[in-house]
């Protein structure tokens, strides 16, 4: 009987640590997928240039079009619906939220290179030209319940135009 109890205890510890491993790996996988999707989404958004302004030699990104394109790219890359909630078959289990979407371009009257700083999301970067900056997040995957609530997975991305020197 004593042996059986020890065996059950070993099994319990094993299952707990195995699930913990899977949870951590899933966190890393989702973080990686979010980062790749955010990189692609800001890339796509930065292409929505105002054609009229472009003919005048100014790089100005259309904010409404850029945001639509950004959302569309996230949906296509992460398997999300219009509300950015996961569709059937998506790797994600929770909604993806766009917590920051910012455009810095010639319409802001700034000169490049510009030191872009955002202390809230920990972004500090010299940007060389008109840029799209975005931060997205989703809930931490949960396989084993814990008293402490884990912070969401949050990833930033910056897409900038660089002028040939």
């Amino acid at each position, binding site marked *: 009987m004593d042996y059986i109890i020890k065996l059950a205890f070993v099994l319990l510890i094993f299952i707990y640590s195995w699930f913990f491993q899977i949870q951590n790996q899933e966190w890393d996988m989702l973080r*990686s997928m979010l980062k790749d999707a955010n990189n692609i989404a800001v890339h796509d958004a930065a292409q929505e240039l105002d054609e009229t302004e472009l003919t005048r030699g100014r790089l100005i990104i259309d904010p409404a079009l850029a945001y639509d394109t950004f959302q569309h*790219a996230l949906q296509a890359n992460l398997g999300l619906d219009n509300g950015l909630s996961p569709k059937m078959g998506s790797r994600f289990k929770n909604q993806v939220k766009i917590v920051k979407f910012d455009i810095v371009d010639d319409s802001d009257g700034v000169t490049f290179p510009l030191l872009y700083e955002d202390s809230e999301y920990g972004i500090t970067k010299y940007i060389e030209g008109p840029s799209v900056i975005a931060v997205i997040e989703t809930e931490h995957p949960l396989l084993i319940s814990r008293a402490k609530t884990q912070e969401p997975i949050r990833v930033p991305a910056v897409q900038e135009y660089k002028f040939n020197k």
Partner: protein
Amino acid sequence: MKETVLRALFMWLVLFIILQPIFTYIDYLLDLQVKANTSYITQKAATEGMVTASMRNEVISNLKAIGFSEDSIEITSSTDTIQERKQRIDVYVTAPRINLFPYNFSTVSQPTRYYGHGSIMSEYLD
């Protein structure tokens, strides 16, 4: 006799405890690599307007280096022609998946392939 049976059962448990985390970890690493390479080829395809042969070879070479056989890797794209700026390009990469468990106790079939999908706007300008 009873003790011998219990010890025999315990040996299987020990074997499972040692092997299962290794299987899980290898599966995760391979999955991550397929997805990372999918993202890489997708972002490269944007500049060229399509997935070129050299991009395919580069990804196949990367995946071969981590143990996939060349014939088993499938790279497909939504287009074989150059897409102009702002047109969307979809890239899919799949590779055969290893067993998730040292022994499958259930009758549920396991996923057979790793899967990566990337969708990006072309930035090609003629």
